[in-house]
């Protein structure tokens, strides 16, 4: 995330975040739609465990998505002094989320897609 190069420059970071805001928010909105669809796909593939686990992830990720959305929506009004620390926390949470999705969630998708493709 190139915004990390701007952590010493709150005004520059703020301006940068506004340019990527729409793309980031679209990504998270798409992810919010992905989870219920994944649960449905797991169910169709007969993967009850996968569907069950996806619902656990979905509820956790939805809270994160909403928080990230609030961060971007309040760029205009949030105190500049807190922007850097909030940004760093948001980056840390997004990184952890992507790591979790790559390790734990997307394999559920691949597994159920393979089953459905084979049937």
């Amino acid at each position, binding site marked *: 995330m190139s915004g990390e190069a701007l952590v010493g420059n709150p005004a520059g970071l703020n301006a940068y975040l506004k340019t990527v805001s729409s793309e980031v928010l679209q990504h998270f909105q798409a992810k919010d739609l992905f989870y219920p669809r994944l649960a449905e796909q797991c169910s169709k593939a007969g993967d*009850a*465990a996968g569907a069950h*686990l996806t619902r656990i992830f979905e509820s956790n990720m939805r809270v994160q998505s909403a928080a990230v959305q609030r961060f971007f929506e309040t760029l205009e009004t949030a105190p500049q002094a807190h922007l850097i620390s*909030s940004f760093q926390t948001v980056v840390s949470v997004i990184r952890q989320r992507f790591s979790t999705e790559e390790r734990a*969630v997307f394999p559920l998708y691949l597994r159920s897609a393979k089953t459905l493709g084979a049937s």
Partner: protein
Amino acid sequence: MSVAVDIHADRYLASIAGEPHVFHCHHYNCFLQKSITDQSALLDVKSLLTDAAAEVVYSELTHLNAQSDTAQVLFGQLGFGVLDASALTPQGGNATVKGSHYALGWLSKFGKSSAPVCFFNAGFIEAAARQKFGAAFKCVETACVANGAAACTYEVKPGGRPSLPASVGLGKLTDYAPRPAKATQTSVDESAIIQACGGLPLAGTAEGKIDAFGVALTRQYSNYYNLISYRFDQQMAAVAGEAATTAARMLLVEAGQVCAFHTFGGIMESAEWEGLIKPMIKTTEDWVYGMVSVVNALGWGRWSVAALEPGQRLELVVDGSYESNGYLAAFGSSTTPRCHLATGGTSGLMNLIYHANIMSRPALTPALYEKTFAEGRFFVAREVECRTMGAAACRFVAERL
């Protein structure tokens, strides 16, 4: 008659006959259990919850060289209700529990259950029978107040596991480094709070209840929490791989956060807080120190504030956390952090003070919990160093998202 509790003041731990105990309330006990029982489609959750109880209780009763009514006295003293196991014989029989902590806690949190919920009690009774008669037994709850019955009833039969794994007791202990400078930069007198908490009547009443700090407390077995949490993680991984173990850890941290919200929140709204701690508080930050001081009276290890940026960031160092003590002794080292309760506790503490405004004494309802994470900028926490990964102490950071 009561069973002696050994206070390890230097380590901020407490034990009975070598078995560590910690205070936790029904919110954590029931939420943690529900996090596990909700996975019953994947796991044998009844065995997971009952077996762990049997192991730790059996170890303690054996070390106590328990006499005929020791188990019943202990059960009530620890806040689990009133146990009557007097009808048990070498052939088994029935036992009852009046005022079961788990059944009443479940009812108050989640309403009527579709099945019995007192798995801990069943394990306790199994252990008592094994210790008393020197033979293997298994125990099942056949009627439960949480399920609509008039009393919690347990059926004990000969059989089950021939022997039980030995408990790790106090676990892998360590020497504590000097506390961080920030830990004492407060007007809150931690030693006075710990001393005052030690003088509170925190043993079960004749009804087997510990009603203190506005919550229903238990002096639960640390290794019970550790065994059910880490076996839950292990078994989830075994049945459904990386996705399941990741989900398990999310649930365990969430349980810690729920614990903090209700237990810490209940404590900070209690008469005891008002009388003991609030008079020492001069700043909002002192609320953090006050709660950390109370935690240090609960047997959870030594919590210290290492850094506190008002309203923004908290860094806690925990020496000898009961989670790491138990994990290291029972499961060895880890490649990931293991102090899930303390992680959730760290974020929960900051959310209560700087986000949910506990100072205004809000009603600690599930709706407020939901709202805390649905509005504004809440705190998230992570364990950045853990003894199970080789660190000297466990370190937690909570930051605003």
